[in-house]
């Protein structure tokens, strides 16, 4: 599957409190959460994000709380893929478990800028920055995790592998 869109770019250690502040966690509805996505790091994000956009960040993206509300808010905001140098481990699990595509690629994360148009092949891990013309290869998933990704998330994976 190919995704392509405008990039929203962030730095190191983007934590789950800025992705979805705790004051909004009194609901579990994805749409209501998405209305406050990235509010404490980028208050204008919800106004400028469009369906199909991509998010790119540096190291340790999604650190902090285990709140699955964070990847859920990002996914529901219309973001189709997050590329980062590295992900905090609970966020990494949560994204895979809910079927939000993520890729780890240090060079792409460092070189892609906000507003670039980026295309990525979720199957091969090839990332193309259409603005600069540069291509990158993201790290692949181990087969077990790829199985969860392919099933569209952990619940589907568990249900279909029974």
């Amino acid at each position, binding site marked *: 599957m190919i995704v392509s869109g405008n990039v929203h770019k962030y730095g190191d250690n983007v934590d789950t*409190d800025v992705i979805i*502040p705790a004051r909004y966690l009194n609901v579990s509805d994805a749409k209501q959460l998405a209305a406050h996505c990235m509010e404490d790091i980028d208050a204008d994000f919800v106004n400028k994000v469009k369906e199909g956009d991509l998010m790119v960040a540096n190291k340790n993206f999604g650190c902090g709380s285990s709140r699955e509300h964070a990847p859920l808010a990002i996914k529901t905001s219309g973001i189709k893929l997050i590329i980062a140098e590295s992900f905090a481990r609970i966020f990494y699990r949560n994204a895979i478990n809910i079927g939000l595509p993520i890729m780890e690629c240090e060079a792409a994360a460092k070189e892609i800028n906000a507003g670039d148009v980026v295309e990525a092949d979720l199957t091969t891990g090839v990332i193309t920055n259409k603005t600069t013309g540069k291509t990158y290869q993201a790290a692949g998933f181990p087969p077990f995790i790829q199985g969860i990704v392919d099933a569209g998330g952990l619940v589907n994976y568990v249900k279909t592998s029974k």
Partner: protein
Amino acid sequence: MGMTMSQKILAYKAGMDSVKPGDLIQAKLDMVLANDITAPVAINEFEKADFADVFHKDKIALVLDHFTPNKDIKAAEQCKQVREFADKHDITHFYEGGNVGVEHALLPEKGLVAPGNLVIGADSHTCTYGAVNAFSTGIGSTDMAVGMATGMGWFKVPAAIRFNLTGKLSKNVSGKDLILYIIGKIGVDGALYRSMEFTGEGVHSLTMDDRFTIANMAIEAGAKNGIFEPDDIMKAYVEEHAAVEYQYFYPDADAEYEQTIDIDLSKLAPQVAFPHLPENTKTIAEAEAMNIKIDQVVIGSCTNGRISDLEIAANILKGKKVKRGVRVMVLPATPKIYMEAMMAGYLQTFMDAGCVIGPPSCGPCLGGHLGILAKGERCVSTTNRNFVGRMGHTESEVYLASPAVAAASAVAGIICGPDSL
């Protein structure tokens, strides 16, 4: 090749003779935990997946501790959803009202987590139970939903960093100072995907409450878990509390560690983590030199709301008054701790000094309720995170410290240690 404590528990629970870092395994869970924020998302997934029932009604804990006592109508609805789920599936360990405490203080106190257990919790500070030699780690709500239904979880076996502790902590230096020092040294992703294994003769000088605080904040270095080697102090605690089956796990002599970090506890000074990351640590002397005026102090949470934390704070506040203009909140982490603090006279000491006593709740730690900061306000807090907006306005500031530093700062009105009062 030998295994670490974490690797041995994972191998045992996966029914394998051995595992190595990077292996992906499926393993049997001893306890699956969630709270009033994460359980609703898990319940939504559980019901959407049409799972028939939970795998074991005694091996799930649902703890309504985050936005409780219910802070608003939406929070009340979430608690109601969890309560109805707990009733429907006859969940034994459902806690609310006068029974609830902050989950990571409550579960060890009830003996629901014990050595060699494999525990997942939809709360990042689930890593706390490494203090009792359990492998415990934070996961999200979907993992929680599947864990509740199947009793199984998937794990990537972590590589390890060994912390070899020697010496003894000085007066007014605590487990909180040690873990803040470590996070300052290795960074908020310094242990990413790894286990933090605490060993060495220095461990014996740490109280169980110190160890809970240290394991609790392993996640703030990005770790999968933090775990302590068993000793007589741990065994005495476990014998007194354990309500479930347990087995101690020791590291193999030839266990492999990616890195060993030696720390002489006697050399540590009190630490303060400055905004907006737990790794931004300074010593108390450096912090005092900056003369930082504060508006609020919070003493409590899964990190530092235990009885010895309250004892330390009460001993500093006894006979003194909170500085005018500073609001101080003390939240005993569980009803039992609350009662002990009352019987010991600590609550009276706090009230005489001008503190507010709050209910056992996560409350201000995550900016939920009970002590939100306004723009520009500063708080010294015994909690675990100081991210942007963590306790309120995005332009407020949280300084993480020990109960001793928090109590002293409450009296001084600036960040300081008890030796400077």
